[in-house]
């Protein structure tokens, strides 16, 4: 082989290598696009909510209230809106049979009583008049309206009956079915009814867990890293500790869940299903990640800076606190955010410590029972109702949004606050 041929071969090899590299990146992007497309196309409808706008006659007789007197808040609160609701639904089809009346009722979310009551409380002037009121549609009709629900399968295999669909279509023709931004998805806690289920509880649960995790893991990890890197003598024992920290980072998260269950719940008797326990468990998991990031950033601080400070007569502690740690902080913080992002997406350990429980209240403190976003995804993904399918994807979107947001933050800190030294 002469020199010329050899050169051509080398160039070809390089071209091939570059092609493989590009193909690999393309593959990775393709997976990402397919994944995101699937999530978005399934989930975006969850941000819309279907309402049925029906004429409601706030008739005093139907509510068993005195027609001549304006009802007080107390009167309205005491009134029976269940029977009133049924009477209202009958107006949609005055010829309905007993069974059909029940079907009419099932076209609405079971919160119709509350919705009718709150409308009257908010609009006391409607008393004695017939007004249009917006009521939450049941998840079956919600899915029908969004087109997620096949109408052409036999009736006995469908949750929405032919009768319901007939009424629904009639309302639709009259423009009495509207779709609006689904605020309740963000303000409601979990519910057995898909049309009412929201992420408020799991979001707060995740937030509290992350805060607990951060406030434990960050200081502990920073102190451990600073001591190991700056003060500890380099000997077999510190080597042993270092190896074990790295091992800890590789421990499957479910093991930490078992630890939380066995120690935090069983021995210390902390309240089950709470973000407090979840946060402590997650902090065990995040600890090695932050320690490793902090040590790497401390190592990256040039020794000349330490020598400069020491030669000025700064003590070891002053050198560390005034120079080394501030310079290592950006790297440590971005490592911390990455660790927290991992913790935010963690499911297994939280399931073990009971954060998988059905929680229909919004937690106010880390000591209240709560779910978390990834666990909420798990719970909803297990539910049979079709309405939960879009909720799962929507919840994934919310989680992804926060993960991307946190990773961007980490990136930003790295770029912006990184001190440049020559």
């Amino acid at each position: 082989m002469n020199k010329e041929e050899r050169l051509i071969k080398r160039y070809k090899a390089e071209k091939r290598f570059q092609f493989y590299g590009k193909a690999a990146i393309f593959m990775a992007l393709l997976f990402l696009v397919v994944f995101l497309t699937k999530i978005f196309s399934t989930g975006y409808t969850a941000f819309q909510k279907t309402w049925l706008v029906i004429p409601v006659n706030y008739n005093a007789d139907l509510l068993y209230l005195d027609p001549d007197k304006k009802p007080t808040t107390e009167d309205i609160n005491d009134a029976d809106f269940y029977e009133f609701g049924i009477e209202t639904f009958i107006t949609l089809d005055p010829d309905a049979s007993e069974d059909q009346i029940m079907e009419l009722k099932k076209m609405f979310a079971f919160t119709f009583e509350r919705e009718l009551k709150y409308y009257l409380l908010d609009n006391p002037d409607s008393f004695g008049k017939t007004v249009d009121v917006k009521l939450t549609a049941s998840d079956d009709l919600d899915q029908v309206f969004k087109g997620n629900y096949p109408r052409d399968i036999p009736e006995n295999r469908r949750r929405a009956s032919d009768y319901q669909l007939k009424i629904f279509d009639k309302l639709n023709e009259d423009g009495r079915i509207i779709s609006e931004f689904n605020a309740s998805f963000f303000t409601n806690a979990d519910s057995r009814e898909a049309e009412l289920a929201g992420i408020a509880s799991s979001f707060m649960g995740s937030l509290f867990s992350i805060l607990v995790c951060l406030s434990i893991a960050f200081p502990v990890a920073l102190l451990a890293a600073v001591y190991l890197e700056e003060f500890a003598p380099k000997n077999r024992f510190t080597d042993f500790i270092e190896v074990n920290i790295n091992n800890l980072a590789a421990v499957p998260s479910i093991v930490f869940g078992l630890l939380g269950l066995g120690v935090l719940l069983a021995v210390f008797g902390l309240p089950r299903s709470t973000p407090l326990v979840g946060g402590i468990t997650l902090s065990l998991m995040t600890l090695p990640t932050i320690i490793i990031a902090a040590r790497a950033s401390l190592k990256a601080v040039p020794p000349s800076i330490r020598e400069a400070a020491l030669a000025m007569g700064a003590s070891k502690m002053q050198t560390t606190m005034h120079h080394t740690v501030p310079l290592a902080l950006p790297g440590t913080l971005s490592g911390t955010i990455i660790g927290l992002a991992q913790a935010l997406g963690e499911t297994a350990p939280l399931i073990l410590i009971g954060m998988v429980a059905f929680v229909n209240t919004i937690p106010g403190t880390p000591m209240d029972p709560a779910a978390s976003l990834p666990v909420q995804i798990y719970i909803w993904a297990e539910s049979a109702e079709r309405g939960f399918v879009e909720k799962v994807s929507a919840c994934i979107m919310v989680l992804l949004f926060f993960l991307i947001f946190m990773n961007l933050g980490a990136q930003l800190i790295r770029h912006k606050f990184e001190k440049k030294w020559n």
Partner: protein
Amino acid sequence: MNKIEAKNVDVYYGAKQALFDINMDIEANKVTALIGPSGCGKSTFLRCLNRMNDVIDICKVSGVVKINDYDINQKDTDVVRLREKVGMIFQKPNPFPKTIYENISYGPEIHGIAQSKSEMDNIVEESLRKAALWEEVKDRIHEPGTGLSGGQQQRLCIARTISIKPEVILMDEPCSALDPIATAQIEELIDELRKEHTIIIVTHSMSQAARVSQNTGFFHLGKLIEVGSTDKIFKNPTQQQTQDYITGRFG
């Protein structure tokens, strides 16, 4: 009068001995140059004088180093106070990644030298003036010190060191990373600083040693071969090795 007296100083890096039985006296308010080929132990000796070798885990120092007649190698020597008296300039300029002002105010701050803001301002200005840097940076003392040129950075480091008025300044090849013009500025500065400080400078350049120093010590393979006035070492050395080195036969 001898500012520093080193007696029987041995230094080991792990099992390897780096300095062998060094005995050397250093005169006050003079510039003493330490010369010798690479790896001869001159920097190691310099770092014995402010105990910077403590930073290196495997480094063991024995022998007596007296500064102002006080042995600094005792167990209970306070290295913080020692380094307040014995400042050091490094081979590569190493300003803190902070502003010029903060670079200089750091020493006085941790040693509690300045009582007020105006006093601190005075110290900063005085130090920068003494380091012949004031005129160049007076309009931007609140900008990062790392933005200066190499020579300016090294003068900033000198200003930082003299801000706490050390009695002794150690310089470890302070000009090796600088261009000839910056080197000339630093050399001029060294001559100026000699009035108030005792200076010990490690250098690779024999011409630099001849230009700036009054006394010179020649190191070779961890031993102090010869020490004396710079004139004598360069013109009339007693040892053959010194003669060979300064005439450029090896090193």
